[in-house]
């Protein structure tokens, strides 16, 4: 943003000058220290470097501030930001994949804690990452404030006066006409105004008229819009981070969900999130269905919901798909994942029927899923089962091992080992519902054969347990996980993004250019009695396009049949 290369930058200190000293491509750098480099030919509103500050107590502070808002610092911070993001993409991140982080810790027991101390597993929430982007934004805002002021001033002020020597400008022409100078300039003014140039005219001391015109202010406007939008984007992101909310919940077919803090399995609220802000809505998952291609790739996911826009009885049906979230008052519900939940009936030794729908966790693309069934309420000893659910089951005839070959439930089976004893739920220690954490007081259920082999049950089959009781695999149902989010900063971020794109396009494609005309009545010389008109123009970007535009403008301004003089003295082109 702030270019330290002001109009007085000496080309001799620029090591690359001469190689890319194409003054026409630099949007922000002024012409480099030439006799004609006056205020008029500066097309940039970048602040000019100030003169050396007087020695005072605040001098070091001001010096540091100038350093921070300088373009070199901004560039350095940009590269640091890019560099700082790299580890975040190659090391597992807690926010993205906490399981992978644990695995990484297990695999690298010495390195992981060291990296963790450097926030390498929370790169994008780390203090050093924040330091870089906050410094960058401070630098940006510092630079923006002065550029906004300068651009505002440029917008209301007149185009600069005509430079003394117009023939030094990259676009230049000269001709004479039989019209008074005032008339020439009035015509020119009208023509330029029609093409939306900003025009001012003045009288030339000693006779004649001059005109200054400028166009393409939108370039800097776009540039500023882009950078202001960046700041607004950061505000939008911060709003989401502070007041937003994200929760995930697993729902089995037939079960419901009401949007309250307690209903979630996992919750990550923003720092300033208020539970009062949770949008009251509820839904029931009637059915989940997935379809797959021949090769097992998923084709579609569909969750049929009945939704209520309050906590009342759900009424309106909704088909939730990937890419089509359910939206209720700014709270969006997404389909996140799915799996199988076999329905089983366990009877205990006294013949009590205990029905359960067991959430099994998928272990791969064919949906072989691990299941744990705990029956703490069984009469006598507690019962537990552990095994796998296989949607399309294939059993090895030799080893008896089961696998799944396809994710859809074409031939579902539940293959389990049974346990009797004390599950360990009663000692108050929390246990995962998805595994048997404490097997110390459990005895495998066995018919006496050795080794103990798991029992495979197809839908409807029952395993009569040796020693009493039974396990029946009734039918296959499914579960789905949903994510509910509320992000109040989302629209701010979207508006800022739109501003960024518009600003970028303006700042890259609009060309800022200036045009000057001087019409002086000739007293003696080559065309006595005629008016000699001299035109000069300057564009920092798109020189080819400007040359054509300049030629067309001159063509339009020049009256028919004039005496045309050489466009540029020959030595100018050397």
């Amino acid at each position: 943003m702030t270019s330290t290369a002001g109009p007085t930058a000496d080309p001799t200190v620029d090591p690359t000058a001469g190689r890319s000293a194409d003054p026409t491509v630099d949007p922000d750098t002024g012409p480099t220290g030439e006799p004609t480099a006056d205020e008029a030919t500066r097309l940039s509103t970048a602040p000019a470097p100030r003169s050396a500050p007087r020695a005072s107590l605040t001098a070091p502070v001001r010096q540091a501030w100038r350093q921070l808002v300088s373009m070199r610092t901004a560039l350095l911070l940009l590269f640091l930001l890019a560099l700082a993001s790299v580890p975040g993409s190659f090391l597992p991140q807690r926010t993205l994949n906490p399981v992978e982080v644990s695995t990484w810790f297990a695999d690298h027991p010495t390195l992981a804690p060291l990296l963790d101390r450097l926030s390498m597993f929370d790169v994008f929430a780390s203090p050093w990452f924040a330091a870089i982007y906050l410094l960058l934004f401070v630098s940006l805002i510092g630079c923006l404030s002065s550029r906004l002021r300068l651009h505002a001033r440029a917008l209301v002020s007149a185009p600069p006066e005509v430079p003394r020597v117009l023939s030094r400008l990259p676009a230049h022409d000269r001709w004479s006409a039989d019209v008074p100078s005032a008339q020439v300039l009035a015509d020119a003014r009208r023509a330029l105004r029609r093409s939306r140039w900003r025009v001012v005219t003045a009288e030339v001391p000693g006779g004649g008229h001059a005109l200054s015109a400028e166009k393409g202010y939108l370039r800097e406007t776009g540039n500023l819009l882009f950078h202001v939008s960046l700041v607004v984007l950061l505000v939008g992101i911060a709003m989401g981070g502070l007041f937003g909310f994200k929760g995930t919940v697993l729902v089995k077919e037939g079960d419901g969900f009401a949007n309250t803090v307690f209903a979630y399995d996992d919750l990550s609220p923003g720092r300033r999130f208020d539970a009062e802000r949770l949008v009251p809505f509820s839904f029931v998952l009637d059915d989940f269905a997935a379809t797959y291609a021949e090769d097992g790739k998923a084709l579609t996911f569909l969750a049929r919901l009945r939704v209520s826009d309050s906590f009342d009885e759900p009424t309106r049906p909704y088909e939730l798909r990937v890419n089509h979230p359910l939206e209720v008052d700014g709270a969006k519900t997404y389909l996140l994942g799915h799996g199988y939940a076999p329905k089983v009936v366990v009877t205990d030794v006294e013949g009590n029927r205990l029905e359960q729908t067991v959430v099994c966790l998928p272990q791969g693309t064919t949906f072989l899923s691990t299941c744990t069934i705990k029956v703490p309420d069984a009469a006598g000893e507690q019962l537990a089962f552990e095994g796998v659910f296989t949607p399309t089951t294939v059993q090895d005839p030799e080893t008896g091992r089961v696998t799944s070959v396809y994710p859809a439930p074409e031939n579902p089976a539940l293959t389990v080992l049974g346990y009797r004893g004390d599950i360990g739920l009663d000692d108050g220690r929390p246990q995962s519902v998805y595994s048997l954490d404490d097997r110390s007081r459990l005895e495998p259920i066995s018919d006496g054969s050795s080794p103990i082999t798991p029992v495979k049950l197809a839908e409807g089959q029952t395993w009569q347990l040796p020693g009493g009781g039974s396990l029946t695999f009734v039918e296959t149902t499914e579960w789905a996980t949903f994510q509910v989010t509320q992000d109040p900063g989302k629209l701010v971020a979207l508006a800022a993004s739109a501003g960024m794109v518009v600003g970028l396009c303006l700042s890259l494609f609009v060309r800022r250019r200036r045009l000057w005309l001087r019409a002086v009545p000739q007293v003696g010389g080559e065309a006595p009695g005629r008016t000699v008109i001299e035109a000069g123009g300057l564009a920092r970007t798109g020189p080819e396009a400007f040359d054509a535009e300049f030629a067309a403008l001159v063509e339009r301004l020049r009256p028919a049949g004039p005496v045309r003089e050489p466009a540029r003295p020959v030595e100018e082109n050397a």
Partner: protein
Amino acid sequence: MTDVALAQLSDRLFVVTVLLYALSMLAFAGEQAARRSRRVAEATAAGMSLREAAAARTRAMAGAGGPTAYARAPEPAPPAPAVRGSRAGALGLLLAVGGVVVHVGSVVTRGMAADRTPWGNMYEFSSMVALMAVTIFLALVATGRVDRALGAFVMVPAVLYLGLAGTVLYTAAGPLVPALDSYWIKIHVFAAILSSGAFLLSGVVALLYLLRVRHDDQLAAGGTPRFPVSMGAALPAAQALDRVSYAVIAFAFPVWTFAIIAGAIWAEAAWGRYWGWDPKETWSFITWVLYAGYLHARATAGWKGTKAAWIGVAAAGALVIDYYVVNIFVVGLHSYGS
């Protein structure tokens, strides 16, 4: 035609495309070589060594920053037509245009075979990126902004991209995974393809610029450039290369910005957040930041010229990482169809 026949046709057209591009690369290389030998001949005829001739050109160009700061450097006069060179160049152009036509045919038949937008996996994406790079290059040649003989270099990454796509990344025509089944695939992915193709092209031109600058520097220092720096002799002037590289980036950067934003909007609809530092998002961000750095560097004293060009090359490198390394080696939400 059945889907299977269409898919086969698409694959065959793909092979023809690679062949045509490779042949056009050779033809352009022929033009480059002819020009170089002609310059040697001209210089000899004028009693100058090649080095002196080039140094004279360099001096003429350096004059741009000299006494008349506003006057642009005169473009070096277009080389006088040499029969052998221009024929090779015209043939190269013909082969490249033919390649683009066949390439478009391959993409269209693939879309018809799979009955969807033909950029849903890495194979198709790579193919499209190469198509964009070549198309933008030909458009620049057609509008007179780029020397067609640069095709010898531009076709190299295009052929490499296609070669990689056709072998390692090849995926049979098939339906999309559910997450990609959205109209955003047309918008987000196409913007990414278009800007990637342009960035790829700008990266090649930036490298050529650096080559040309090194060549000129060595000549100015009184040395004799050796291969590969000697290839710089047949290239357009450094400034012209720098300007082309900038123009292409200036076009691609807003498109890339839009691609990221469109991706964020899609991510919001698909995953419930518009930004989550998924590896793909992270590297898109890194690429974006580096190109932003490039644009700023070009406006900063001490950074313009070769430093800015190196940033442009690094940014193109980040883009390749964003695309290949992230998709193949890092598991993330964007790990589709590889």
